[in-house]
């Protein structure tokens, strides 16, 4: 049975509270994982483990962290994601809102892109 959006949010929220040691009320839909919730790179592995368990899904590494795209000279020039790279990112991450990032797609800003809403959308896409 498909989970309602509020149920997905509640489970994502619980995973983030556990993984990041933040309070429930800090985990809003608009909160960014890195900037607002203080996630560090190692926390993403923890978040992946917790989401896999909470939703009984498998999360391939490259789906949440498209490092291969962001380090590929075919897609990045002078630290900026090219149009071809943006297309690849959108193809890889259709669940993420990349509209703000696209205005000035500097690779260094990508790390602070994902929001709690994006994460919920990703889980929803995995649940089908």
């Amino acid at each position: 049975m498909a989970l309602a959006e509020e149920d997905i949010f509640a489970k994502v929220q619980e995973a983030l509270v556990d993984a990041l040691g933040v309070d429930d009320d800090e985990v809003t839909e608009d909160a960014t994982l890195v900037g607002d919730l203080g996630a560090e790179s190692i926390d993403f592995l923890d978040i992946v483990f917790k989401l896999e368990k909470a939703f009984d899904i498998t999360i391939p590494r490259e789906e949440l962290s498209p490092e291969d795209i962001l380090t590929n000279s075919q897609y990045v020039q002078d630290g900026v994601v090219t149009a071809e790279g943006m297309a690849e990112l959108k193809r890889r991450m259709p669940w993420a809102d990349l509209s703000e990032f696209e205005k000035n797609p500097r690779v260094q800003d990508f790390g602070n892109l994902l929001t709690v809403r994006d994460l919920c959308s990703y889980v929803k896409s995995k649940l089908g």
Partner: protein
Amino acid sequence: MRWIWIDRFTEFSSGSHACGVKNVTLGEEVLDEYCPGYPMYPPTLIIEGMAQLGGILVAEHFSFEKHVVLAKVGKSKFHQPARPGDQLCYEVHLDSVQDVGATVVGKSHCEGKLQAEIGLMFAFLEEGRFTDGPLFRPVDLRSMLRAMNFFNVAVDSDRNPISDYPALLAAD
């Protein structure tokens, strides 16, 4: 001083769980300064002992061929202090395994009472990125496992005794 914070394996089931004991003694220097006037074993070393037990559980799951390091201490609760004379019985279970890391959940009991609950996450170092070669000399790791009675209790997933590992017999 050896940086070993479990005394002995008491149970080891490959890919499932590991149990071990830690005897707390007043002769250990670590009890001197942690809480002057009230000798107790530092909770951080309970985490470390549990991480050693869990790290071996994870590394063994991959036949000691991955470079396993403690990456994160998750939610932990300490219900009572560990005092001189206490025997802490640790038990860790493999929780999740991925190609880049693993999680374990651990409990410590003292005289049958729950003493601590600890969640741990391990990461696997990529060869050549953070390390060249194994984190331990295979011969040292094997000696350490023998000293901790690992091979006396270790069984594989079919409950057959484990006698050795090719990765630990490799030449240095």
